[in-house]
């Protein structure tokens, strides 16, 4: 699991469905993780949430 400062949901064009989780890695670096149960990076984020952490909603 990479280190990151915060996590936030991104939505589709209609603003209805969550498509990605945007990780702020610091120093203007970002990682967008596709929300897909088969995505191992997404699975790691779900474990991070299970540990009591929170993904912020979009601005």
């Amino acid at each position, binding site marked *: 699991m990479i280190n990151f400062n915060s996590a936030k949901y991104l*939505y589709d064009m209609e603003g209805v469905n969550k498509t990605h989780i*945007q990780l702020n890695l610091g120093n203007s*670096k970002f990682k967008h993780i596709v929300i897909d149960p088969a995505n191992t*990076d997404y699975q790691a984020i779900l474990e991070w949430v299970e540990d009591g952490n929170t993904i912020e909603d979009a601005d």
Partner: protein
Amino acid sequence: MSKAAELAKWGEVSTNGQVSGRRNVVINGAMQVAQRGADAVAVGTASGYFTVDRFKVFQGATTDGRISMSQAAITDLGGFSKAMKFDVTDADTSIAAGELLQIGTMFEGQDIQGFKKGHSDAEGFTLSFYVKGTAKTYSVELFDADNTRHVTQTFNVTTSWNRIVLNFPADTTGAFDSDNALSLYILIWVHAGADYTEGTAATSWAGNVNANRAVGCGSLFSSDANELFITGVQLEVGSVATPFEHRSYGEELALCHRYCNALLKYGTGNQNDNRIYNADYANVHGFIRMGYPRMRDTPDINYTISAGAAETDYSSNGLIQLFNDSVTNWFIYDVLLEKEL
């Protein structure tokens, strides 16, 4: 390869239909491609892809051992100019039960149907690779992720290059799914705690038992003087190892792009000819768009941004499409797309 072995292989390929075409299912077996960079330090704290494409380091539990990993230039092995190198910087001689360090490459099920695994006419697996380094015994495991089955063998490393050839039996139980998901691992175990070594080695395909996975495996971390070089990794159908199948750099790079694509001048920090502009540069409501060859599935995107943050991501498989309606003059650079198994 001896004449007898050549004849044996010819007889085998004549009967299993592999007369022509690609023999090696491993991508980047000659370690030519390293899109993320050639060097990584302090490897051992987490699993990940650090240097050469398609080869992942797996770490389990907490070890004090650390390695520098690199795509090393080599001149002492004919036919190869690159190898994956592991140089121990911090030793770990107190191995907890759950510790492990593996070097792995993985396969989509749809790409390995030729092994006919799970069928009555299943084929064997022949794995070959070149190694040198500190004299040690390590383990190699084939792990079927679809059916949670495995088979393992040990091999010896010496201070000179040797080609290791390992024949694994056919498995008539448990077919590989024919899709784009992970079906098979090749795992080279170079450090293992008792949880993985205290059983009886699974020398025939069997349901996974952790204690049987790395029996007899030594530890790369036993001294900070240890090192290990690997190249020429090949996995092929049948029971005879053919010469390593050399492919061009361009061909290997294209194959790697299905899993990882470093765009433009990724990793340089260059903000000029490494940038993807907001199409409406001087105004807000700007899209960044860039097409790329389709990958295994829609990838995760890593990037650095000039200012602010992308507010929405409309990307799909083959197109980066980010939107921001509050910042002008923005662009991204050092873009890395990942859809590894």
